[in-house]
């Protein structure tokens, strides 16, 4: 797509006084309706300047002398084919924003409108855009702008924003007639996305304001667009010039909406690519980039579903296994415990029974012993009783004997007594001599001469005095 300059043949230029006063009237009627109005030079030049301002034209030529004075840069544009020269003025800040270094001999296309400099009455072209012609010049301009913007932080990765993963609304800035939009749309997939398509010029000097306006439009209108795609197909450095301009770079830099630039082919890296939040190598790549997560989503969802279900099922079966294991362990343990208790009970029972048996045996033994002892005792009692009875009998018998004996003995004693009776002795003529104390005297030595002694006789007693004891 080429940018055709608007041509204004000299005859069409409304420079007649009548036109200046009554713009609606045609110039053909002018000569008859000339009004004698006297202008000052300044007024006249003001009117002319006002009128010719709208004649925006693109002119190609070679830069001649360059003169930088204050805020303005003056240069001449020369015709290569014939001797023709045009004075040009460009504001310094505008020139800086173009990233072009004006050098003598550089061939350029300039866009601007004519103006007359009042103090000198000099006709010149006030330049809006300058596009270098020729790869070398463009390359130099590109490198210079790149350096400048880099220094200003335009390419800083830290300020770049991530793209939305699942964009629903996309702002597409490209030419409706270009291949780029078809490639982009073809590879965007079909995910129910809303694409706001802003048709712009992507080549020629007017492409710069066109692209800038589109970026600004999206930033100024509440469309809900989440990402802007600035794209065009491949081309020469000259045809990509808009995307190597500071204006477009600034518009991308200032955009509150993240921007993907997809300019040209993979090898074409423009200033716009450096400034954009994300660079796609081609329009196709940009489409794929935005649909990537959408196309992966179905697969991702599938994976998540499988993972979640599998993990849950796995977990459930693991829990079942654990439960089964626990159940088995617990039952076994419980049964074992029951068996152990039973065994213990049996042991205790057995032990107890044993103990009782022992006690019973002991009791039996005691009983037997007791019975035996009882028998013994009985025997003993019987024996004792018998003995007693015998003893009693013997005693009785003995007593009786003793009684007889005693009687006999008494009789004997009696007989002895009778024989021993002193009276009987006395009667037989024996006497008993006693001392004065009454003691029976058996030895004369027990008496002394002169003792009084009593001699008892059968019939009476004698008192005598010891005369002699021999």
């Amino acid at each position, binding site marked *: 797509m080429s940018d055709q300059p608007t041509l204004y043949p000299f005859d069409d230029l409304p420079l007649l006084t009548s036109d200046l006063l009554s713009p609606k009237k045609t110039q053909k009627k002018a000569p008859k309706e000339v009004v004698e109005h006297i202008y000052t030079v300044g007024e006249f030049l003001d009117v002319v300047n006002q009128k010719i301002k709208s004649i925006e034209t693109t002119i190609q030529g070679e830069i001649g002398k360059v003169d930088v004075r204050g805020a303005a840069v003056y240069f001449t544009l020369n015709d290569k084919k014939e001797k023709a020269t045009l004075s040009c003025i460009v504001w310094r800040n505008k020139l800086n924003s173009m990233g072009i270094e004006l050098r003598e001999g550089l061939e350029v296309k300039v866009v601007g409108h004519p103006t007359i400099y009042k103090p000198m009455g000099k006709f010149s072209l006030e330049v809006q855009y300058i596009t270098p012609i020729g790869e070398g010049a463009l390359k130099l301009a590109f490198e210079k702008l790149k350096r400048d913007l880099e220094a200003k932080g335009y390419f800083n990765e830290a300020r770049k924003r991530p793209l939305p993963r699942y964009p629903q609304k996309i702002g597409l800035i490209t030419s409706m007639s270009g291949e780029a939009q078809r490639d982009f749309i073809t590879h965007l997939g079909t995910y129910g996305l809303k694409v706001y*398509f802003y048709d712009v010029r992507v080549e020629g000097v007017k492409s710069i304001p066109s692209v800038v306006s589109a970026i600004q439009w999206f930033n100024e209108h509440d469309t809900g667009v989440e990402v802007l795609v600035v794209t065009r197909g491949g081309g020469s450095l000259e045809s990509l010039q808009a995307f190597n301009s500071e204006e477009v770079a600034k518009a991308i830099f200032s955009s509150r909406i993240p921007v993907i630039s997809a300019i040209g082919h993979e090898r074409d890296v423009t200033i716009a690519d450096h400034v954009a939040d994300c660079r796609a190598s081609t329009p196709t790549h940009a489409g794929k980039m935005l649909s990537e997560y959408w196309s992966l989503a179905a697969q991702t969802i599938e994976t998540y579903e499988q993972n979640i279900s599998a993990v849950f099922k796995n977990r459930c079966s693991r829990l079942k296994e654990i439960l089964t294991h626990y159940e088995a362990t617990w039952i076994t343990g419980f049964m074992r415990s029951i068996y152990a208790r039973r065994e213990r009970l049996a042991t205790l029972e057995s032990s107890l029974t044993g103990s009782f048996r022992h006690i019973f045996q002991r009791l039996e033994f005691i009983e037997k012993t007791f019975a035996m002892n009882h028998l013994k005792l009985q025997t003993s009692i019987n024996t004792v009783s018998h003995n007693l009875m015998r003893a009693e009998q013997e005693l009785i018998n003995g007593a009786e004997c003793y009684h007889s004996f005693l009687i006999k003995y008494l009789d004997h004693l009696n007989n002895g007594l009778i024989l021993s009776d002193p009276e009987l002795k006395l009667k037989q003529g024996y006497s008993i001599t006693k001392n004065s104390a009454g003691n029976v005297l058996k030895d004369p030595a027990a008496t002394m001469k002169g003792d009084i002694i009593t001699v008892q006789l059968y019939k009476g007693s004698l008192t005598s005095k010891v005369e002699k004891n021999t």
Partner: protein
Amino acid sequence: MDTKKTDFADAIKKLEEINKWFQSEDIDLDEGLSKLRLGKELIKSCRDRLSTVENEFLKIKEDFVEEEKKETE
């Protein structure tokens, strides 16, 4: 549309979290069941969203042209 977008991105994010949760060593069965249910719902809604296929194109060239005209006037 914004709600839909948020829902889809949110749903995917939640699914991602649920999936991550399920990858953890020890999962609580009750919580797992509730997360499984939520996950299934989210998967269904995401699938429904993905089944909307055709894109919509709105050409805004006319607006631009109108603005351009206004500027030149």
